[in-house]
């Protein structure tokens, strides 16, 4: 059996290629990153970003876009740092309410045929507002069990890598291999066929938005477990980071074309890219700018490799 390099294969391998493209210079600059300690330090913040990316992926699956995931993750962290510590039941209830709110919004978007960008933009204001009301100034504490869970040391391979791989595997099985997953992806791929088949698009969208909310909650809690205190602006950058990660992972804005494994790799690539900058000793003025430049370079790589595929 020969292994031909076709466009389709290249396309599927693209997230891995981008990861290597970022990883190699890092290893070149800092060989110690390959060690257990080095990799866990470098990828420390990967788990919440991976989870937020999967939340975004759930929404991009139905051709929508979630502009509120960053503020939502911040809100969850704020709930975790205040309510969940003082009144665990109330905190859990609030988190469940958030997931429910997400699902409701999903149903609403389908029922009224309104653009998700605008509705989630409104939601972003709401989440931010709630987070500020809950926690006007940075602070709070992480529930003890959360810190313990996030600091758990896995044998052989650093915990963030293990968690990310596990999340990718479970997500892949659920969305790509299960019949429910196929049905849900169909809502993005061909909604008209879905409707004619008698499957409810409203239910599909509500489910996916609910799943997004669930991943958002997990992302917020894992972030809180790592930072041990919360802030209403803690994760605002996650919105765009998660969209970029999904796109980097081979997701498209149309047609329910997504890849769970790719998105997870994309999230890790972007996490690494941020650390890469720290190694380069760039002046602080250009830190932000280099992030933009890396994003552009990595995304244009995608276009270069896909060129033949598109024609």
């Amino acid at each position, binding site marked *: 059996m020969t292994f031909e390099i076709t466009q389709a294969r290249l396309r599927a391998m693209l997230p891995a290629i981008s990861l290597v493209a970022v990883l190699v210079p890092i290893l070149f600059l800092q060989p110690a990153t390959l060690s257990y300690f080095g990799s866990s330090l470098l990828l420390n913040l990967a788990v919440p970003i991976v989870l937020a990316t999967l939340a975004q992926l759930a929404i991009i699956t139905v051709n929508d*876009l979630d502009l509120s995931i960053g503020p939502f993750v911040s809100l969850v962290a704020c709930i975790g740092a205040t309510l969940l510590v003082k009144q665990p039941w109330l905190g859990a209830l609030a988190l469940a309410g958030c997931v429910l709110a997400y699902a409701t*919004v999903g149903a*609403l978007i389908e029922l*009224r*045929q*309104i*653009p998700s*960008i*605008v*509705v989630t*933009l*409104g*939601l*972003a*204001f*709401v*989440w*931010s*507002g*709630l*987070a*500020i*009301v*809950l926690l*006007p100034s940075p602070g709070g504490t992480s529930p003890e069990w959360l810190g313990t869970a996030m600091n758990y040391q896995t044998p052989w391979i650093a915990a963030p890598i293990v968690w990310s791989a596990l999340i990718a595997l479970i997500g892949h099985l659920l969305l790509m291999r299960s019949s429910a997953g196929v049905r849900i992806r169909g809502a993005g791929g061909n*909604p*008209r066929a879905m409707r004619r088949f008698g499957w409810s698009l409203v239910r599909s969208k509500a489910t996916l938005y609910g799943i997004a909310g669930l991943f958002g909650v997990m992302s917020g809690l894992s972030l809180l477990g790592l930072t041990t205190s919360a802030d*209403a602006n803690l994760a605002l950058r996650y919105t*765009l980071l998660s*969209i*970029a990660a999904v*796109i980097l992972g081979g997701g498209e*804005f149309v047609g329910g074309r997504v890849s769970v494994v790719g998105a997870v790799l994309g999230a890790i690539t972007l996490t690494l890219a941020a650390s890469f900058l720290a190694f380069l000793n760039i002046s602080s*003025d*250009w*830190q*932000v*700018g*280099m*992030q*933009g*430049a890396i*994003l*552009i370079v990595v*995304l*244009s790589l995608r*276009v270069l490799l896909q060129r033949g595929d598109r024609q």
Partner: protein
Amino acid sequence: MSLQTPSETQSASVANAGLLARLKSIQAPWAWSFVGAVLVWFAIVIIFGFSIASNVAQTALVYGVFMVLVGLGQMLVITSGVGNIDLSVPSTIALAGVVSMQVTNGSNGRIALGLAAVVGVGVAIGLANYALIRLLRIPPIIATLSSSFIIQSLAITQGRQLPPPPSALGAFATGRFLHIPYIALAALVLSLLLGILLHRSIYGRRLSAIGQNSRAAWLAGVDVHWTRCIAYVLSSVIAAFTALLLAAVSGGASLDMGVEYMLISIAVVVIGGTLVTGGKPTITGVWGASMFLFLTNAVLNAVGADAGVRSIVYGVLIIVVTVAAGGKALR
């Protein structure tokens, strides 16, 4: 304006139907935000008295106008088709503000030079944004975000030891003609020009066409990319121009003076009734929505609501307006 004819015939045909049905048949999405703004203003008159309300209106004509300006640019980009959005507005404001202050260097004689610099910054950013979208095929939301990071860094490097704005510019920013701030008049002139561009020129027709169906427009011979490119350039130029005025009003440019305008610029476009899927802009709606949001903000401030509550009200407003307006079947 041409929209009134079908709506009149339509409302005549449903004259027997209920009032609600008749209101729904009015094809003027911009009217709602205006009604909202007027209602809120009357609420202020009733609660706080006329003198305070007229003060609030005066402030709205300065600070609300900045929302109008950034909204107008965003409106052009959103109109150019689904998925098109300009997230680089805040960093454009930062860079243009900083550059214009450096170029004018506080001297009245160099204001023209400053204006030219502002336009130059705007054109360069707009072209760069569209180059990323077109040449590298990056989705607009990510492209304009990535470029905004780079622009922000550029602004940081230029932002040290900023001279204050020239005195004449400061006088213009705070000056009034018949109680109406010059800034509001400037925005009005810009709105009129844009109105002519959108509704009375070939470019406006083309922009609407590519927004409604870019493939059909392309088949009809419209240069889709050039038309869209101009929308991005105009958006950046307007944002850059806003930066100059913002710096003049607040007595100097700062790197974070544009931060809040990213979400606001989108919010006023949407609440104003511009079709989010593209192809149908409304300038009047942007004004109505800006005044509405500014006045609501003023009321919330006056009753002592903190930033969190204000943000929640903003968000709920956006969602309620969108849900109430509903969408056409997109597919």
